[in-house]
Each structure stands twice: as C-alpha cells, then as structure tokens.
C-alpha cells in the first residue's frame, strides 16, 4: 500500500525520489573515488549535495575506512614517536591497526583520519620469534631503501601467515608495503604511489618468492582536471643464506623492479606525445600545414553547384 502511494507521489512530482540506501550508496561512491589527499574536500561537497546529515554520516562511516585502508594512509601516533600505516595487513579490527615495527596497536578514527589512542600489542597479535627474525631483516633494509627513494614515504612489513607457528611448517609469508602520497592545493596537484609486495619464504630451500603490485595515481587540476591511474604486477624469486641476509636480497629485487617500472612509466609518457596521442588527434594534417579553410569552402561550394546542375538535368 505504501509503495502505491509513493509511486503516485513520484508521478505527481515528475521525478523519482531516491531511497535512503541509494543516496548513501552514491555518497559512498563519491568518497571512494576521491583523488589522493582530497577526501576531506570531497566529503564537504558530498555533505552539501546529500542535503541530509544522517545520510552523509552513514556514507562516511562506510566509505572512510575502506578508503583509508585502500590508500594505506599514514597516521601520526599520539606520542609523536612515528606513524602507523592503515593497511589491511595491519588490521586487528576495523578501528585498530598494528604497527609491527614498534609493536603498538593504534586506535584510528577513520573519518577524522587521526589516531586517538595507542597501546602495546598483545602477545597473540605479534609474530613468533622465528617470523620476527625474517620480518626485521626485511624491515631494516626496506626502511633504508624507502628513505632514499621515497621522499616523505612510509613503509611497513607484516607477517601474514604462520603467525602462530612455532616450528617451520613449510612457508612463512610476509607482506611489505610502501606508501607515499602528496597533495598541494596551492600547486593544484596531488598523487600517490602504493606498492604491496607479498613474500613467501621457504626456509628449507633457502628461497623466497615475491609478487609485487604497484598502483600510481596523479592529479593536476589548475583550470582543468587531469588524472593518471596506473597499475602494475610483477614477480621474482631469490635465494638466501639465512634470515639475516634475506632482507637485503628481497629489497634489492624490490628496488630493481620498482626502478624498472619507473622507467617504463617514463617511456609511456615519452611515447605519448609522439605516437599515442596521434591516435586521437594529430598535431597537424599529413600535409604538415594548417588546414585550408577557404579552399575547402570553395571545394564544397563547387560540389554543391555541380550537384544542383546534375539534379536539374
């Protein structure tokens, strides 16, 4: 019965009113699509266009956690001792995230994007001593690399499997993440580089396999709106002697593959101007001169006349 009344209302008003769920879904969509560093501005706009604060809050509550985890945002710890990365590997629950380097669990307010509390990690939240050896080995090298290659970037290494395994039962898995983002509204630009490296270690064989996934975004919006969106996957494997030197081996591969990717990006940009863009529009016609408007006009007029003559006959 209610539906029928609602339908008639629609007819009277001439347009369909969206349901609350649909509005929340739209709000969430806009928030999730925010370019790096701009979710707060987008949030202000979404609040305005939704014209309903309770719907906006619902959309924000759903979108912000997803956005923060996807973009691996770094959040300052309350005692200013460093930053914790909000990533899916760090998730203890949807408002608590572990920083493996300092063994601290941070409470995160997703919508404000701040850390409201911190506490030492419990034993069952931390990896075993064996896993920690490998983790530290990679973390130490990764820190050095990230400091050199990523101005302002952050990184973390997590144990993703076999956390509670005391003796080796096949493979140990780690996940190394690198996250760097920048935003300057004054210069109308922003961007982010996110890399996730999954590492599977086989202690017996002294071998490790890595799979990398890199996502790069860039946004330039001075009197316009231009965005870059890339993604890349790669993999490799290494041999190592022991946990101590494994880290260097892993990070060397990461550095090499990421540098290769950076040059392939440079390559793509170089090709763009000369070749790729031509697929859309040439710089000049094949004649290498500007288009001759008056000649073309004459041609078309004489064609018209010819057509008129032939049709009159």
């Amino acid at each position, binding site marked *: 019965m209610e539906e029928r009344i609602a339908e008639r209302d629609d007819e009277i008003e001439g347009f369909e009113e969206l349901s609350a769920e649909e509005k929340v879904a739209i709000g969430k969509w806009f928030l999730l699509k925010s370019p790096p560093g701009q979710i707060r501005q987008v949030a202000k706009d979404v609040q305005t266009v939704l014209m309903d604060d309770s719907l906006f809050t619902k959309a924000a509550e759903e979108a912000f956690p997803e956005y923060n985890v996807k973009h691996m945002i770094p959040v300052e710890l309350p005692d200013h001792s460093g930053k914790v990365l909000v990533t899916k590997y760090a998730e203890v629950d949807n408002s608590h995230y572990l920083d493996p380097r300092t063994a601290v669990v941070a409470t995160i307010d997703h919508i404000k994007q701040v850390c409201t509390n911190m506490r030492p990690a419990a034993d069952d939240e931390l990896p075993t001593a064996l896993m920690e050896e490998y983790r530290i080995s990679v973390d130490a090298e990764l820190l050095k690399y990230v400091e050199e290659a990523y101005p302002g970037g952050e990184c973390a290494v997590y144990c993703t499997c076999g956390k509670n395994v005391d003796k080796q039962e096949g493979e140990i898995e780690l996940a190394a993440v690198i996250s760097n983002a920048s935003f300057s509204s004054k210069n109308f630009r922003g961007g982010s580089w996110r890399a996730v490296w999954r590492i599977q270690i086989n202690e017996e064989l002294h071998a490790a396999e890595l799979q990398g996934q890199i996502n790069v975004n860039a946004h330039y919006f001075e009197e316009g*709106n*231009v965005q870059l969106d890339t993604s890349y996957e790669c993999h490799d494997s290494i041999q190592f002697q022991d946990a101590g030197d494994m880290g260097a081996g892993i990070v060397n591969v990461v550095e090499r593959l990421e540098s290769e990717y950076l040059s392939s990006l440079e390559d793509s940009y170089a090709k763009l101007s000369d070749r790729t863009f*031509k697929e859309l529009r040439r710089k000049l016609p094949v004649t290498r001169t500007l288009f001759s408007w008056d000649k073309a006009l004459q041609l078309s007029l004489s064609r018209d006349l010819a057509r008129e003559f032939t049709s009159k006959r």
Partner: protein
Amino acid sequence: MEAAMDLMRRMPPAECQQALASLLALLPSQSPELLSRVDQPLQVACDEEHAKQYLLCDYNRDGDSYRSPWSSKYSPPLEDGVQPSAELRKLEQEANEVFSIYRDQYYEGGISSVYLWEPEHGKGFVACFLVTKDGSESADGRRGLLQQGLWDAIHVIEVGEEDEGSVHYCLTSTVMLALTTADQSSGSFSLSGSITRQMEADASMTDGHLCNMGRMIEEMESKMRNGLDQVYFGKTKEVVFTLREPLGVLNASSRSGQSLQQCIINEIGRF
C-alpha cells in the same frame, strides 16, 4: 550547485558520466543547470535517410528529440521542432561539410557535427562544432596503440553582428579525453582529463564566417591538444617523479647526491 561542480572537478575524468548521473539523481531540480554546465562525452546517433552519423548535445535537442545536421529532421520525429532560419541552415550545411574535411585531416576518422541557431535575445547567431574520436584499437585507432582512447571536443562560438565589415567572435572550447594503454610488460597506464578555454577575436567578413570560425577552432584545438600533452600530462609525470625518485641518478637534490657532495667536501677540507 557549487558543491556539485566542485565534485565534478575532483572526480576521475574517466568516470564523469557516472558522476553526473549520480548528481542528477540526487539533485533532480537542478538538472537543467547541471546538464548545461557539466560537459559530457558526446553520444552518436544515425541519420537513416542520409546514412550518416551525427552527434547529440543540448544544442540540437528539443524535448527528447535530436535534430540531424544532414536532414535537419528530428528523431524521434517532432511536428514543430526548433529549426534554424533558411539562411542559417544553408550556412549550417556548408559548415558540416567543411568541418568534416577538417576533421578527417586532423583526426583520420571520428565523427563531427555543427549546429547553428539564433539566440533568444540579441542579434547574430551561435554555432557549436562537435568532434568525437574513438582511437582505441577496436575502433578508429590506426596504430593499435590504445586499448581505450576517447577524444571529445565541444566548441561554442557566439557570433556578433557585422559592424563596418568586421565581426566579433567569442569561442568557448572544452576538450575531454581518456586514453589507456595496456600491455603485459608495463601494466595498465590511463590518463584522462578535461579542460575548458575561451578565446575572443575580431575578424573581417572578407573570408566569411566559416573561415573565421574555422581558423579560431583550429588554433584553439591545437593549443589545447598541446597543452594537454605537455602541460597537463607533463605535470602528472612530475608528480610521479617527486613521489619516487629515480635512483642511480646522481643529482644535487637526491640523497645519494648530497652524501656524495658531503664526502667530496670533507675530502677537500682535509687539504
């Protein structure tokens, strides 16, 4: 409304259709303004009579029907749809033909349409020139480089009245583009964007309106194409390179460069 426009400026250009559809659903009372202020990729229709395609926009629309520049008829048919005056229609036909040749020379494919109309108030007339090009390898892309490639250009020119043999033209152009290259070795690479520019000029009537408008559009398109290529895409490249520095390249600002500088300075200092 301003919040809606700000959202459109921030959303990924490749998703502008979804973004606009969402805004129209949220703010139905603002749809006329949204539809006229937000640029959208151009839709294509086919004129069966002339076996030619034409482009749809607000300027050839009357109600839910669109007027073909080839037959000047509305589809779906309208009994008394808005039509340009006979004189304007003649100019419109010439414009479509000539612009088609221009389009072929620069775009090597694509579809174009030109629509002319008299404004409600004031004298003179308004013209809009539209071009759409699908450069993906499955469509018009001759070199097979793009998985996805779309270029849409919308040029609206306000033409003033003739004053002592000279006319004032005011051009507003919007270019929207999206391109994606993808291959095994380098993953997927997508650039998309939209920019709007304006240009005004006075020209004599010696060569006629078409030549004057055409030259302005040609100049504007080239400027925008190069601007997108060099400035806009170039800036996104800069952003990437500030996020991740190329290692092994020693320059004064990189960490390895600075530490090397320091070593050298220390060595020199010893003497």
